[in-house]
């Protein structure tokens, strides 16, 4: 099952702190959406509002067209997968996964069968009789996923589900999450602060900062054509181009990614001195400083073989320059 989600002018204040400021977003049914931002940006608050654990100070949440105002978490077509998984330690995996079905009044035989199916989906059917403490971190994460999906939610909310895993396992679980999402077709809303994770799994990414939406779009757009300076910085390195070199407007800066700075290109950045360089396998990461009186720093990723000598002065060019708003 699946449903679309609409958030209409959502605001949330805690005392004088404004956690969310007039959020308008809509996600399609079956979409994998990632809420991305630094800690404290309001992404988890927004997820808790979707799940019904918080009611917003202002605004409307609609899931499948239905207004969720005053609807308790248990009555929402959402389930949440918590950051610490919140697996019940005194229950077996089967009982954990079957918990939601038991609450719906499903008989033991039927819910055990369904629980085993769900454990099968996440590749843990042989461990159904174990308890959570006997599992590794990655396995617990899968049980939590199975438990949340067992009740057939329309929308699955994931609160930094991979945050507790080490890097290698994390990358592996990303692919699994994506595969399972494709298989079940449920709308996934996934919170993370890891931009690589976001790009790897999202259909669309919402970039958030200080309780506002900075950007919303497919990963390619978010990375290559960010709308704001914050998004550009958060998604990777960005070089700011001095206003004189481009036709500048007020409150807009121009930026270029290091891989789009080179010895050829559309816009001349002028002569620059190579200060240091490091080898990164597929490219050289070079720190330049412009040789004019502005001494603007540039970071460039130069192809193997293009590396000038340190202290050499070479003409630098930029392509794919993007205009960035200074604020959202």
């Amino acid at each position, binding site marked *: 099952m699946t449903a679309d989600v609409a958030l209409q002018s959502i605001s949330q204040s805690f005392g004088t702190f404004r956690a969310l400021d007039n959020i308008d977003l809509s996600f399609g049914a079956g979409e994998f959406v990632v809420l991305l931002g630094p800690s404290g940006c309001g992404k988890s608050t927004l997820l808790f509002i979707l799940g019904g654990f918080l009611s917003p100070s202002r605004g409307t949440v609609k899931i499948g067209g239905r207004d969720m105002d005053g609807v308790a978490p*248990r009555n929402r077509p959402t*389930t949440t997968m918590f950051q610490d998984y*919140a697996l019940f330690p*005194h229950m077996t995996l089967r009982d954990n996964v079957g918990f939601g079905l038991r*609450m*719906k009044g499903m008989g033991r035989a039927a819910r055990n069968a369904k629980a085993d199916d769900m454990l099968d989906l996440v590749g843990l059917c042989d461990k159904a009789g174990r308890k959570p403490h006997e599992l590794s971190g990655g396995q617990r994460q899968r049980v939590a996923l199975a438990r949340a999906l067992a009740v057939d939610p329309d929308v699955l909310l994931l609160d930094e589900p991979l945050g507790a895993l080490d890097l290698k396992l994390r990358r592996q679980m990303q692919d699994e999450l994506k595969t399972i999402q494709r298989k079940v077709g449920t709308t996934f809303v996934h919170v993370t602060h890891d931009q690589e994770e976001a790009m790897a799994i999202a259909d669309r990414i919402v970039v958030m900062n200080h309780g506002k939406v900075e950007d919303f779009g497919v990963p390619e757009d978010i990375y290559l054509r960010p709308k704001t300076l914050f998004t550009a910085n958060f998604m990777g390195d960005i070089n700011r181009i001095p206003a004189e070199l481009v036709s500048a407007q007020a409150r807009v800066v121009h930026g270029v990614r290091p891989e789009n700075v080179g010895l050829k290109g559309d816009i001349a950045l002028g002569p620059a001195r190579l200060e240091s360089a490091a080898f990164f396998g597929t490219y050289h990461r070079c720190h330049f400083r412009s040789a004019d009186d502005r001494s603007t720093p540039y970071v460039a990723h130069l192809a193997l073989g293009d590396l000038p000598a340190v202290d050499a002065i070479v003409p630098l060019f930029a392509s794919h320059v993007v205009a960035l708003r200074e604020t959202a």
Partner: protein
Amino acid sequence: MSSIERSERRTAFAFVAPALLWTLAFFLVPFGAMVLLSLAHLEGREIVQAYDLGNYIKIFTDPSLLKGIFVSLEITMTVTVISVLLAWPLAWIIATQVPARYQRLAIMLAVLPFWTSYVVRSYAWALVLGQNGVLMQWLIGIGLLDAPIQIMATRAATIIGFVHFFVMLLTLTIYANLIQLSPNYARAAADLGASGWQTLRLVILPLTLPGIMTGAFLTFVLCIGDYITPQILGGNNELSMPQLIMLQLGRRGDFPMASALSVVLMALVTLAYAATARWLKMDRV
């Protein structure tokens, strides 16, 4: 083993040795001395070592002594159960219903009478529960009673005095257990469709079992070995084991019998530990 490791171990052992020696000399050896003494007999005013189990046989055949074991066990079990039943809701209310910034205050208030002296606490209950005490005067004042009823010098008084103390203790252990539970357990249960009552019964209560069992075991140990509360509040109508032990020591000077009773008391505590250890080991994630 490298020489660095060896010297580190030697230093470490030198650090542990004084505490070990103290425990050995003033806990283990005395305990051994007591066990030996329990195998002796009082003959006239002399203690004669016999290395037999006469005292133990007497404990389990003499009705007045055997009754002490049952009195102690009954009081302790009753106290433990009532205290858990009263303390759990209190700890839960403080942990979940009281606003976070008042919780520390609420807990400190809940255990405030800890800071009265232990002898004085039982004495204060004697004042409250006595024939002319505050409670009787109040119950007669509001017309619930015509004449005072006897609570002092009964088992009820002992139990009230004990429950008062152990409600405070259990509230602490259960509260400590409750606040270290992630709030996401309750959220996850609610999210999956559990009602408030179902969440409490199926998730929160089982998760506080370690706290309950730790507190219940402490209650058992402290309650069954306590002399003051039954002596001040319960009086001499029925004697608990500590009262019997003190009686042997005092009036009769029967040191060997007091020792044997203590060994039996110790055995009961060990049994209680064996019974709860299974739960104390409850796995947590």
